[in-house]
């Protein structure tokens, strides 16, 4: 099977999932319709009607982690190609990647020491 065919199958799987969902929705619709009633479509808030929208500027207290992640995440891009040729390249690969990861780890340590790794 060529790679393109495989992707086509995966795409088909995704479309199939959409189809299943759509048919379930259609079935549910066929059983009956939803009646609009007062208060029904207000988001549930443990027994009180709370009509204000919840969309506000949200304070993510983990933003220090998030910023570190953005940078740290990139190391994965290099690690996979490295991993598959690790055995044939031998010691060079270990040392090379060791240096790379050590550099990144330093960054993590710096972030840690400066208090990026905590709830803000």
């Amino acid at each position, binding site marked *: 099977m060529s*790679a*393109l065919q495989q*992707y*086509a199958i995966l795409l088909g799987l995704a479309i199939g999932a959409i189809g299943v969902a759509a048919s379930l929705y259609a079935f549910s619709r066929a059983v009956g319709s939803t009646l609009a009633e007062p208060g029904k479509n207000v988001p549930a808030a443990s027994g009180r009607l709370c009509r204000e*929208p919840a*969309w*506000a*500027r*949200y*304070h*993510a207290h983990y*933003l*220090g982690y*998030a*910023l*570190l*992640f*953005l*940078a*740290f*995440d*990139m*190391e*994965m*891009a*290099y690690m*996979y*190609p*490295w*991993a*598959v*040729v*690790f055995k044939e*390249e031998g010691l*060079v*690969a270990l040392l*090379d990647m060791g*240096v*790379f990861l050590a*550099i*990144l780890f*330093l*960054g*993590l340590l*710096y*972030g840690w020491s*400066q*208090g*990026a790794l905590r709830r*803000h």
Partner: protein
Amino acid sequence: MQTFFIGFFGLAAIVFAVAVFRTSSMMRSALALLFSQTALGALFLALQAEFLGVLQIMMMATEMSIMAIFMVMFMMDPGGLGGMDMSHQKRLSMIAGLGAVMLVSAIAAYTRWQELASLSQAAAADEQIRHLGRELLGRSMLVFETAGITILTAMIATTAVAVKVPAENASHES
């Protein structure tokens, strides 16, 4: 089939990219960017760059999600409930954007790429990753280590700039 996929995902990427600046909901904007990048990833797959494509699809999901949270933090009306317009010099930008598209497309169309080509078959995906790995550890080792240093620099810069300075410093900074 390849041409179809390239066209389809290319179009999807463009449509989502346009949606980024067409909506007033920040969440939609960030997610549109995300799906634009995902479509690009799929485009890479169609171009038989499997590793890069999957990597793009994966990286952008988390990165753009983080983009989403920061947008929600910093924009005045993240839900877009007020329908506010947050742009300026629209006309100029539109002209510049269109002009750029024209120019670059023209270059793309009138260059005789065939003469530059050296090989028309890509290796199997499995082989590609290996080649890329060898490239990383061989010729491009310096580039790769430089990337490491760059990431380190970015991490340090990010932490230094973003992590809260104690209250007494903050006052005279502004």
